[in-house]
């Protein structure tokens, strides 16, 4: 989920800032780039904890090389599951032929995610394979892997450098997906040091070619703590296609609970 992705990455960054400002832990020995990368990821995760749940609306505008556009409208609901991956629910509103279709993900840290699809025309709940990580999400430039949760345990890390970005300084960390079926060999992530927000992710395919770039903008802070990007732009450098995802109407700590993220809840998802 993009949200969790951004939350997590944002959290990664903010944790780092906290740690740095407190001057702790004292460096007993020089940290390796791998340790530093992992530490940043863990810190971000810590910062992301405690959000409870949130809902938001996402609009995707898909644009091909010729500039033709197509729109997707999805509502998302996310429930924090302490100790495991988050639970997420996508409800599709547009295009209208998939209206009412809902997609439930139980993300896991140590095993494959569980995924169910609800098809309203047949009122059928289908358990689907989660191995299709590299597939396109609704024809967009975001893959399921990009949309899915970026659990810390799913990557190994390597801190590369600090560099200026916008008005602040960013850490640049390389991360390597552990999943065999990942479409990527590596990703490079830019996060600002002050608030640990992710501003840019470069995706490199299995052959190490620069496949896609994600740019994040319009950050807003929720509950005085959780940063969410309002606009995510994914550009595919091989095809020239792009997708702009706008996220609005963030609502935190709603009435959502565990029961809305079951197969029974999936059937009444709106």
């Amino acid at each position, binding site marked *: 989920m993009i949200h969790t992705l951004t939350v997590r990455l944002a959290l990664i960054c903010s944790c780092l800032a906290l740690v740095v400002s407190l001057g702790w832990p004292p460096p007993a020995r020089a940290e390796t780039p791998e340790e530093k990368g992992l530490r940043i990821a863990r810190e971000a995760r810590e910062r992301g904890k405690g959000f409870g749940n949130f809902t938001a609306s996402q609009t995707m505008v898909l644009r091909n090389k010729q500039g033709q556009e197509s729109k997707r409208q999805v509502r998302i609901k996310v429930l924090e599951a302490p100790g495991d991956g988050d639970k997420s629910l996508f409800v599709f509103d547009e295009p209208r*032929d*998939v209206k*009412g279709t809902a997609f439930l993900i139980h993300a896991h840290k140590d095993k494959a995610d569980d995924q169910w699809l609800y098809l309203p025309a047949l009122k059928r709940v289908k*358990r689907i394979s989660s191995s299709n990580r590299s*597939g396109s999400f609704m*024809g967009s430039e975001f893959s399921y892997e990009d949309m899915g949760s970026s659990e810390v345990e799913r990557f190994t890390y390597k801190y590369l450098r600090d560099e200026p970005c916008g008005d602040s300084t960013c850490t640049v960390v390389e991360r390597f997906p552990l999943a065999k079926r990942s479409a990527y060999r590596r990703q490079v992530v830019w996060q600002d040091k002050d608030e640990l927000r992710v501003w840019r992710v470069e995706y490199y395919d299995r052959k190490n070619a620069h496949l896609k770039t994600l740019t994040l903008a319009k950050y807003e802070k929720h509950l005085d703590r959780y940063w969410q990007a309002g606009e995510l732009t994914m550009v595919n450098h091989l095809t020239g296609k792009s997708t702009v995802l706008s996220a609005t109407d963030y609502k935190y700590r709603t009435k959502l609970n565990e029961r809305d993220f079951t197969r*029974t809840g999936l059937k*009444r998802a*709106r």
Partner: protein
Amino acid sequence: MRRAVRPLILLAASLALGGVLAAGAALGIEIADHELSGRLALEGRWYYQDGAHAGQRSHAGGFVVEPNLYVEDAEGRSLTVAPFFRYDAGDRRRTHFDVREAYLLLLGEIGDGEWELRLGADRVFWGVAESRHLVDIVNQTDLVEHPNEESKLGQPMAHLTWSAEWGVLEFFALTYHRERTFPGRSGRLRPGLVVDDERVSYESAAGEWHVDMAARYSHSFGPVDLGVSVFDGTSREPCLACELPRLNERGELLLVPHYEQIRQFGVDAQLTVESWLLKLEAIHRAGAGNQIGVEQDYAALVVGGEYTFNGIFESDVDLGLLAEWNHDGRGSKATNVFDNDAFVGVRVALNDVQSTDFVVSMLADLEHSTRSLVVEFNRRLTDQWSLHLEGLFILAVDEADLTHYQTRRDSFVEVTATYNF
């Protein structure tokens, strides 16, 4: 409802929405959310061979109107109303109206879990298989819609769900029996004799008012999704050989559908591991008549799986392979075409902006030479219009395969353009 009244239906739906909102407001119920959605579809179907039975036409075509009205209050209680109307120029019996859904949904907490109660007409799907839906029994099949038996009539019911950590337990009281729809004299995909739509016979003295009971337990055990179900009541599948055909006033012989009291136990399971989906559905049914109208208890099975190659040839294209085996313990006395049949299929999803996909599947009888092929194509044209092309090709029919033989000349091609709103 025999006439094309699409604007009227939309008007009625809008008025109903207005009425519900007004009523809700009057009763002091806070309407938190409401929505009117649905589809309009234009369909043409051509049977390119002359019919095997007298009076059959070579085309079917018309339109479908299916609005869906949803109203939710601040507590999450909701009302859903989804009427359905089809007009068909080829077969007057295919022109029909139904209330697919009209139910009130109430819910609340119970212990660590929740309860949910749905009151009214609704559709309920059970099962995992693709070639047929064996355990699925709550709703009657709207057979005139499509021979694949996937369209269902709305079923009046009280449906109580109790779900918690240990799984989902559901109880159904099904308060009225819906008769299966069958093609008329000019329709295709029917037996030699037309099925009567006026006279129907029930084993139960209560007739269509017999209250059927059903229950289902389902849960996900790691990679396994399991369902166990029981149904006790009036069969959804009529016995067409149990009653003598009758002569109507025009001197036509008609098959009289007879609905028996049955008890069915069902199990459905799916194992999802990486790109594999392994599926099983099995039933045991007691109390139903077989092909020759004799009561015969039986077990039936569909077992198979699906494997998907994602992103073939470094593209976004997914290629899925499907295979299932259907078995019916009654063998040649089975009342359907799935006595001992293999189903194989290929699904290609381009995963493009238009969500283009193709499905080619074949059902082959393993004892007879009967084979049929289904080819489907789906593509979204705009954000609101989508296109569906389908061909059902009956490639070979063995004369000894009675259920298939009746429809041996009913291959068709179909075009459907749907406007979704």
